[in-house]
């Protein structure tokens, strides 16, 4: 006789099981429509494989598992897909979820099945794959995909396989009836699981309030190495952690799964589903659901197709909706209320209770907690529910977590015994939900922070790049100036400096990855010379060939063409290089440099002029001085203009290369236009007469500048097109 251990706490609520065990399992029948939610399990929803209007056969895959933890769904009968839509589902929130609606055709035609007479002929992987595609999930209520569970972590060895037939919650008798009527199939299913897992011990745990089921199972396990272990009736002995403790004295460590300590629990209904999937090739399309509660005329257990509307199902048991006060999915301890019967039965719907107000009276008003400690005595996880309540109510979630809130299995034993009618479980659910939400928020805000910081860094980098570019330009200008001032240096150095400056100007857009260094002009010239030489040679050869051997003409022609192209390319490259590396054979001042000087002089002049104007109206004493200064500046401007003209003339005549490139010109034009617009705006806004006058002058100047820029652009364009 195998010893049975004990777990802390637990309660003995009235069982109320006899109402639904008087009749054998009945078939619920085929409703008008079946509503099959895509998510009936833990993990990701199934991916629908059908479209409205499509005809499907019974057992046909209509939704395939998506991602690692997911389960397949199948058509429970043959018929036509009506829609895939958001419909109310059995969920404590009362919200809707995606469901496939199937209109049965009444023929109940099976899709081809692939039964396996002897599962030992199959590989384990093959068996697991079949379990996965049969859509089997934990039928005890958790709904965890069975195939995933049967794949324990590689390093763990399942030593004890436990079949959970405890069914400790009051009212529910689905597993009880299943064990009474289909013990043989359950045991076969367990053998398949054992074949996959190779455990040393196989146990079926069952509470001592189910003598018929115990007898049936004991008979069925004869000749196998499976042991039926009877445990005392106490809620929640059917909780996975509690049953493991009862049968093996092992506690599943916090944050681990049973497989981590060599144990695995499966529900008896799951074992049956595995058997049917392997032996008969039937996917999980129906389950046993207990219908009970005082509002039902004929309570009992029904074999129900997945997707059957609860309303239809309850009508089979003679429901009196007028007398129904609470409609519960699941048991009275852990189930949740349904606000409407227009939701479908899913794979985890083990029980439906249509309860009258007398059966489950509305909760009494919450009284203050007197810390009586009844809850701590009842807690099967050995928590301090009264402290958790205190923290949850005060929203001190960190303290609640410290008191192991997340070990709470929400069995409801504490709230059951609470003399102050405090809805303790709801407090814990609220606290857990809030904490999960906070965690999600923290993760999201961390991500937002990262993205924000990355963006800030990027903006700063761009700013720095711009700054560097500006600096480099200024430096280059300074260098050119210095060069101009210095006495003639040897030509190569000058060229190097010029190339450097050009590089600085051209290459600064991407300072970390400089553009391939511009080939220097001499080199380009050399290349061009070489290409021309080669071309000449080719031409020569071609001529020769034409005269002597006509065979090669074509080839040579092609070669000549190629070479001509090459020469052309070299010429272009040379021209491109020219504006960059403005040669200084006569030490000509750089054009831009001159332009800059001119601009500066003009600016200064304008300023002076303005000062002069001001002085004329305000300070006659300074007029003379200023007039002299202005005259001097005018002279300077004139000089600068002259110098520029001189410089421009040879540059323009020498090559067309000095023409500034189009985008730059366009840019300048845009800038000038912008400035003009700003000025005009300012002019429109201005009201003081002297300001108006000043602005008018500025506008006129700017208009001129724009016109100039436009002209320059036009010119550049025409040269570009003519080339």
């Amino acid at each position, binding site marked *: 006789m195998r010893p049975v251990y004990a777990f802390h706490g637990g309660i003995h609520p009235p069982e109320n099981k006899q109402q639904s065990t008087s009749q054998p399992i009945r078939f619920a029948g085929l409703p008008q429509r079946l509503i099959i939610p895509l998510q009936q399990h833990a993990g990701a929803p199934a991916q629908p494989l059908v479209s409205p209007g499509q005809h499907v056969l019974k057992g046909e895959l209509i939704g395939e598992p998506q991602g690692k933890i997911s389960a397949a769904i199948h058509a429970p009968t043959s018929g036509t897909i009506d829609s895939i839509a958001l419909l109310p*589902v059995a*969920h*404590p*929130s009362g*919200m*809707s*979820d995606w469901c496939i609606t199937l209109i049965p055709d009444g023929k109940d035609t099976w899709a081809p099945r692939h039964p396996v007479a002897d599962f030992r002929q199959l590989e384990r992987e093959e068996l697991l794959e079949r379990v996965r595609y049969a859509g089997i999930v934990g039928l005890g209520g958790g709904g965890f995909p069975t195939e995933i569970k049967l794949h324990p972590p590689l390093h763990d060895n399942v030593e004890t396989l436990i079949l959970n037939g405890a069914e400790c919650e009051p009212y529910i008798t689905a597993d009880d009836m299943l064990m009474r009527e289909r013990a043989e199939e359950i045991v076969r299913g367990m053998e398949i699981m054992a074949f996959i897992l190779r455990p040393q011990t196989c146990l079926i745990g069952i509470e001592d309030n189910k003598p018929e089921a115990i007898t049936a199972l004991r008979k069925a396990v004869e000749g196998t190495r499976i042991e039926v272990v009877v445990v005392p009736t106490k809620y929640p002995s059917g909780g996975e952690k509690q049953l493991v403790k009862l049968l093996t004295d092992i506690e599943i460590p916090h944050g681990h799964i049973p497989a981590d300590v060599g144990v695995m629990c499966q529900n008896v209904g799951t074992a049956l589903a595995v058997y049917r999937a392997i032996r008969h090739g039937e996917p999980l399309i129906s389950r046993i659901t207990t219908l009970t509660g005082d509002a039902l005329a004929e309570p009992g257990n029904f074999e129900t197709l997945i997707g059957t509307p609860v309303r239809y199902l309850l009508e089979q048991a003679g429901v009196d909706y007028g007398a129904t006060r609470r409609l519960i999915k699941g048991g009275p301890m852990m189930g949740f209320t349904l606000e409407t019967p227009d939701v479908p039965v899913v794979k985890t719907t083990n029980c439906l209770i249509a309860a009258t107000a007398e059966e489950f009276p*509305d*909760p009494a*008003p*919450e009284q203050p907690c007197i810390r009586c400690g009844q809850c701590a005595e009842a807690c099967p996880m050995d928590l301090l529910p009264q402290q958790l309540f205190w923290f*949850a*109510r005060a929203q001190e979630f960190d303290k609640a977590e410290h008191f192991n809130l997340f070990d709470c299995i929400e069995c409801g034993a504490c709230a059951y015994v609470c003399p102050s009618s405090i*809805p303790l479980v*709801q*407090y814990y*659910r*609220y606290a*857990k*939900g*809030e904490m*999960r*939400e906070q965690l*999600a*928020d923290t993760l*999201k*805000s*961390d*991500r*937002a*922070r990262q*993205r*924000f*910081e*990355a*963006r*800030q860094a990027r903006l700063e980098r761009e700013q720095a790049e711009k700054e560097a570019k500006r600096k480099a330009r200024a430096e280059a200008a300074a260098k050119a100036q210095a060069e101009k001032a210095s006495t003639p240096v040897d030509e190569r150095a000058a060229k190097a400096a010029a190339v450097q400056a050009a590089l600085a100007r051209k290459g600064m857009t991407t300072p970390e990855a400089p553009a391939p260094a511009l080939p220097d002009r001499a080199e380009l010239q050399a290349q061009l010379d070489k290409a021309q030489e080669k071309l000449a040679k080719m031409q020569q050869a071609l001529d020769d060939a034409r005269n002597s051997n006509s065979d090669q003409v074509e080839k040579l022609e092609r070669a000549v063409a190629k070479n001509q192209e090459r020469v052309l390319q070299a010429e272009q490259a040379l021209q491109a290089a020219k504006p960059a590396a403005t040669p200084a054979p006569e030490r000509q001042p750089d054009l831009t440099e001159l332009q800059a000087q001119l601009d500066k002089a003009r600016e200064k002049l304008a300023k002076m002029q303005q000062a002069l104007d001001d002085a004329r109206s305000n300070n006659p004493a300074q007029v003379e001085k200023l007039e002299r200064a202005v005259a001097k500046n005018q002279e300077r401007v004139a000089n600068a203009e002259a110098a520029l003209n001189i410089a421009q003339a040879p540059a323009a005549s020498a090559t067309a290369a000095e023409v500034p490139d189009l985008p730059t010109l366009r840019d300048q034009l845009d800038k000038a236009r912008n400035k003009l617009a700003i000025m005009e705006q300012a002019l429109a806004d201005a009201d003081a007469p002297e300001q108006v006058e000043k602005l008018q002058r500025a506008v006129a100047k700017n208009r001129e500048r724009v016109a100039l820029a436009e002209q320059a652009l036009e010119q550049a364009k025409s040269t570009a097109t003519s080339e």
Partner: protein
Amino acid sequence: MLTSVLIAVAVLLGLAALFGGLLGYAAERFRVEGNPIVEQIDALLPQTQCGQCGYPGCRPYAEAIASGDAINKCPPGGEATIHALADLLDVEPQPLDAEHGAAQAKRVAVIREDECIGCTKCIQACPVDAILGAAKHMHTVIESECTGCDLCVEPCPVDCIDMVEIQPDIRGWHWDKPTPAQRLQIIASDRQGATA
């Protein structure tokens, strides 16, 4: 007589020195190295980077709080953030400063894509780079990264950005905190229903 007084004084002085030394040592030896306060404050802020506080992002506001600014300028964080900050800084929680806006439900930006002209203005405004798109091409918001900061709404020249409240989702749902009043109310309303 005098000697005993002296002895007493000496002993007391000795004890004072001893315990003073012990305390000093303990304070050094077991000093708790905390995060810099700015980091801790920043960790509590919601990171919407919306700038409603008047600072160009959450981190600058965290720095401002660390140097003494009020803790009630963050509408997206709402009461919860104010309480967390008050807790951290050991000050009294204050109500949200209405000047900086009111707390509202979590929202995300959604671009009405057929109206978008592809001007990239919203992309430049987004503090967390949660808008995708290129010039003259339609833009779209990466919803999972959007912090609901509103900053993209203003720059949009064609007003094609909506701030949409995040609808409760069946997978994110959880039970509310029970309120005694709520329970009593259920009972009261049901009684009425029963008599009617």
